[in-house]
């Protein structure tokens, strides 16, 4: 969708996926036959929308006047001084309407759903950011909305649950499994297969069957496209490092993608290491998983030897997922992007660092990216540049953080 994609040639790392929806061995369309014709229809509708200047014009209008784009690229002066190394910039996705990068994708898909004549939206959510964004556009366009959310997440993200209900969405708690994002995804797929005639499945991350990983990436690429322009204006050159948190990986894919063909820019995805990468309680699918098939795509998954999916763990509900978008799996295998972990504790520390030095309360998801940036910045020269994607704001997380700090609200 972005101008960079159109320019991407055959040797570009931005030309994927292939016709089967594959990034190398990853991706694909592993769904029941009932859904297959719908995915083919969606693929066709998306291609037609991409080719239609009116679709782009409409999307740009809503992104500017409703979402509030472009989002600023902020030079984090005090954090830079405190860490004493590379210059730190923050891409301020938390300033979007609804408080996260999620609305970029949701706005694109809801316009597509309308073009396809769908009247009902179903979505999965973890932290509730995607659910809130989805409920918001359903209110905006007067569409019916059902949000599936793990029962555990309903409990730890109460403010977002209330927000979704205020917006008119039906929030369905899912008790299967551990009651987190994976189980919500299963249940959303069951709803979709049952209500195919009028329902559009609005996937919130760069995972799921083709064309979702591609489509969500395209809609989120606006983050990287803007970052490129903004850093050129501020510094006259590209950054040395871009750091973003990875759950399914949509904010990371959005900021990485426009830089894939700039090999001088290191791309670092920070997975949730939970209690530690080797603790067995982690959500680090790339670092501790194996390739497998779940939720419509082949990708790195946390699983046992028999191919049963294991539960993920993270303090951040938005990262608490045993898989990852297939394009990240591919970027890891070919070595174009690096994938590392930040623990629950490191994220909590970074949450406070960002809040105290910049006056920005980041989402716990984004705090994982800040944690890793804070780890590497002091060892870098002062003329080096790091961009951190601040994917969301942390108001929703203050209860969780208070609990971990031993504060009763």
């Amino acid at each position: 969708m972005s101008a960079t994609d159109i320019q991407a040639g055959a040797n570009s790392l931005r030309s994927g996926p292939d016709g089967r929806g594959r990034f190398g061995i990853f991706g694909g369309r592993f769904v029941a036959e009932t859904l297959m014709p719908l995915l083919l229809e969606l693929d066709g509708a998306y291609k037609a929308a991409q080719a239609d200047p009116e679709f782009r014009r409409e999307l740009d209008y809503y992104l500017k006047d409703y979402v509030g784009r472009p989002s600023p690229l902020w030079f984090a002066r005090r954090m830079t001084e405190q860490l004493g190394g590379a210059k730190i910039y923050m891409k301020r996705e938390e300033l979007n309407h609804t408080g996260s990068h999620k609305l970029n994708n949701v706005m694109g898909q809801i316009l597509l759903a309308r073009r396809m004549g769908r009247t009902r939206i179903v979505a999965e959510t973890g932290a509730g950011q995607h659910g809130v964004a989805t409920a918001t556009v359903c209110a905006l366009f007067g569409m019916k909305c059902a949000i599936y959310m793990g029962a555990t997440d309903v409990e730890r993200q109460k403010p977002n649950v209330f927000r979704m209900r205020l917006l008119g969405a039906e929030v369905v708690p899912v008790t299967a499994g551990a009651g987190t994002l994976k189980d919500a995804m299963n249940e959303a797929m069951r709803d979709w297969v049952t209500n195919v005639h009028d329902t559009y499945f609005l996937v919130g991350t760069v995972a799921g069957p083709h064309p979702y990983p591609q489509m969500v990436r395209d809609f989120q690429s606006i983050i990287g496209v803007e970052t490129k322009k903004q850093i050129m204006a501020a510094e006259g050159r590209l950054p040395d490092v871009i750091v973003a948190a990875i759950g399914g990986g949509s904010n990371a894919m959005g900021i990485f993608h426009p830089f894939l063909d700039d090999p001088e820019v290191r791309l670092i995805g920070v997975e949730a290491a939970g209690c530690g990468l080797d603790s067995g309680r982690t959500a680090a699918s790339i670092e501790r998983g194996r390739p497998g098939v779940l939720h419509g795509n082949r990708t790195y998954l946390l699983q046992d030897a028999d191919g049963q999916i294991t539960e993920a763990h993270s303090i951040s509900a938005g990262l608490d997922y045993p898989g990852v978008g297939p394009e990240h799996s591919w970027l890891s295998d070919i070595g174009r992007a690096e994938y590392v972990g930040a623990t629950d504790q490191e994220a909590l520390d970074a949450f406070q660092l960002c809040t105290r030095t910049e006056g920005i309360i980041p989402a716990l998801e984004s705090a994982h990216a800040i944690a890793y940036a804070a780890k590497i910045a002091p060892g870098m020269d002062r003329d080096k540049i790091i961009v951190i994607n601040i994917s969301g704001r942390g108001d929703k997380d203050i209860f969780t953080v208070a609990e971990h700090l031993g504060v009763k609200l």
Partner: protein
Amino acid sequence: MSRIARRFATLRQQGRGALIPYVEACDPDFDTSLAILRGMPGAGADLIEVGVPFSDPSADGPTIQKAALRGLKGGSTMKRVLEMVAAFRAGDNETPIILMGYTNPIEAYGPERFCVDAKAAGVDGLIVVDMPPEEADLLAGPAAAAGLDIIRLVAPTTPDDRLPVVFNGASGFVYYVSITGVTGTRTASTDELAHALPRLRRATDLPIAIGFGIRTPDLAANAVRAADAAVVASALLNTLEGTLDADGKATARTVPAVLEQLRGLADAVHAVSKAVTK
């Protein structure tokens, strides 16, 4: 000729439809599910589907989800599933066994080794719920080499111009998912089936089984009037679940209750007389 083809040929000569019951491996334990499996041919099963438990059965309704979780708790792994089929095969060399499951446990086992081991255990066909024709190359070669049938799913949403894609590479029989939805929920109406079946018959000569939402002898009989076979899963699993004790363990009633229900379904299916074909 494969066991599946042989069984359908025999049924056609006899002018009968087939009942295909489902049993989830290791639900709630290995021995109970093996006892049910062994009892099924005697209770009227013509072919049998053995469910391979998976942690995330996203196309299944609550009944099969619970059965899969019980199976995993009961120690199911792909290796145990194949051991169970081999134990059944030692006493029955005729009744076709079809494994039904999801891609990931097969991928984790290794598709080639899986097909070789499944064939050796006595498996005849595979239904992989989340493997549409577009992804079928993962198993097509190894399954053909091992002599396993790949049973394709076809749905009400499958348009006519896609039917050749779905049936290309299909063997054994075709499984018609008669509703849009998950297992064990809504039932297709007679009208819906009357509309669907001619559409499928025009596109394939393979026998057609109908599944999803068939829970009573009447519904099973209806299905074989329209098609060649009826698949019953959730109804039998509900019965099984109802016999478990408070800890989810099997009781003395578990195996007989499931087989008794199966007998009622089979009697209704076998009472339907169909045109005799060669």
